[in-house]
């Protein structure tokens, strides 16, 4: 049960075996995705046709590798841009929210807090359509009344960013709030007491304290944006982020090209996560 309590050996063995199986279950799908990126076949499946790097570096059809596939590279860039925008926006608003809820007691705070949590329990697709409906209403209204064509209110990257931002901000707020709650406010008072004004105190003391959470929230926001599908699906316009582009491809049939992209994604996010862990350890 816990190491200090004598437990029957059999139970211990069964339990450990179960956990081992669980990890096999976790790893298996990713492992096959990774492995078949190197299969020299048009279809990510057995039999093994031999090892190839064509799905990464191939230049000629049908085996055009990721690094020569313009549309995939473009989609990665789009995803990165969207992710960066979402990360910056949601961390900024999240930090502001964290300060608001942590520092001020005001009427309606409870209601606002629950409202702030709500995007977490709204299905992503509903978030997507509600934003799509609203922005279309506004855009159509502008067009009908003033013949103004508000392009940014039509499906496209702006809406994708807003749609993802609408729920990722909640997560950023929670992550940053959690750390701000651990902040000892007397540190700020100490700074005031030592001659800093309010803004300087926040800048020199509170923000450095929050930094690990801010960076953490930023990375999490970026990753979540990068892999978001449901909300994006409803809001995407002419330039699709990677998940949507891959989904469109997948509808056209699986090819090891998708395995190759997936493998790169795994490597990318592992790298990001490791950097994050290293950063958190350091501070």
């Amino acid at each position, binding site marked *: 049960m816990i190491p200090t309590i004598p437990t029957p050996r059999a139970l211990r063995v069964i339990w450990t075996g179960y956990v081992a199986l669980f990890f096999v279950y976790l790893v298996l799908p990713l492992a096959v995705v990774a492995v078949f990126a190197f299969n020299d076949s048009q279809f990510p499946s057995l039999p093994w046709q031999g090892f190839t790097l064509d799905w990464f570096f191939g230049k000629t059809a049908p085996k055009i590798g990721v690094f020569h596939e313009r549309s995939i590279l473009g989609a990665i860039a789009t995803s990165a841009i969207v992710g960066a925008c979402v990360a910056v926006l949601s961390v900024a608003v999240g930090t502001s929210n964290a300060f608001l809820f942590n520092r001020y007691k005001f009427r309606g705070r409870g209601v606002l807090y629950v409202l702030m949590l709500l995007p977490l329990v709204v299905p992503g697709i509903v978030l997507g359509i509600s934003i799509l409906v609203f922005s279309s209403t506004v855009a159509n209204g502008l067009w009908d009344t003033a013949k103004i064509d508000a392009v940014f209110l039509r499906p496209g990257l702006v809406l994708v960013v807003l749609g993802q931002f609408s729920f990722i901000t909640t997560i950023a707020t929670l992550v940053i709030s959690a750390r701000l709650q651990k902040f000892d406010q*007397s540190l700020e008072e100490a700074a*005031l007491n*030592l001659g800093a004004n309010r803004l300087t105190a926040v800048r020199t003391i509170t923000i450095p304290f929050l930094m690990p959470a801010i960076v953490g929230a930023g990375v999490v926001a970026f990753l979540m944006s990068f892999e978001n599908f449901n909300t994006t699906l409803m809001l995407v316009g002419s330039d699709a982020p990677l998940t949507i582009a891959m989904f469109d491809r997948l509808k056209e049939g699986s090819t090891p090209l998708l395995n190759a992209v997936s493998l790169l994604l795994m490597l990318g996010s592992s790298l990001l996560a490791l950097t994050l862990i290293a950063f958190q350890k350091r501070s």
Partner: protein
Amino acid sequence: MTSAPDLECTALTRRFGETLAVDDVSFSVPAGSFFSILGPSGCGKTTIMRMIAGFLEPTSGDIAIKGRSVLDVPPNKRPVNMVFQHLALFPMMNIEGNIGYGLRRAGMSKADIARKVDEVLERIGLPGIGKRKVDELSGGQRQRIAIARCMVLEPDVLLLDEPLGALDLKLRERMKIELKSLQAAFDTTFVYITHDQSEALVMSDRIAVMNKGRFEQVGTGQDLYYRPETSFVASFVGDSNRWRGTVERVEGGTAQLRTDTGLTMRAAAKGGAAKGAAVDIFVRPEAIRIGRDAADLAQFDNQLSGTVGSLLFNGAASRIIVTSDETGGELEVTLPQSGEFADLTRGAPIHIGWSAAQANCFAAGEG
């Protein structure tokens, strides 16, 4: 008086909604002295300190430093600094960064800051630790850094809010003595708040005992301990045997009392202890003498025979609990340090006595 006191509070009052946290408190602290405010949790100590530091506005009253009112001065401009209860050292900076923080805010040059920081580290006996991180220091060292961080700004008054609260017992004992000598070294006015009477007694020049937002008594440690003026002070400062009782007779400064438990005794009447009044009576365990024979104690105004109920051996601070034969009431009595009664056993008959002057009685309070 020629020079104004370093700190002077006049009729200071602060409300939080219904709560009257600080209630018409006035005091002044002469330059270079160590002033403590002693009181139980929630009595308003921190509130006073935060008003002085500028984090709270008084509801009414005035705060003057070196004779000039500071009410309109924002906290970052007041010539007072504060050592916080949990020290509030900045964990994201090293020691140098912490001590230099105030100097940087004042716009001092880098070189000057470095020099000053080294100087003050020297002064607190921790030279060369400037590059260390806060969490690489021991509790006592942090304590000193927190003080140095303030002292480097040369404040007129240093405020300390229970700075020893977080330390363990043995370290706290040591730091009491060290704090006092740091104050002497810096020669600055210290205003110290605590709920631990022994801290206040050991370190302070003067102590204010605070209760429910008001100062009950201000004086030296001896004043408070030997000459408490209120029932609260008598009970809060030092240990006492305590009874509720009524006055049966008053004669000069001495009252004849009967406790609710049935004991009769003579005590020094403080305040208006009129006949028939309900009073609180306090007798310190060390004020009670023990004898094997009633005759040994003939000189005392109050005498009692009983049996030893419990032996609370605690080295030099050993006590016994004496159960009165007459009423069954219990009294704590300190054993003499001489070890004369070390051989007492549970259930042994014993006689005790104490003088009326050592028993204080006050009009009964609610405390």
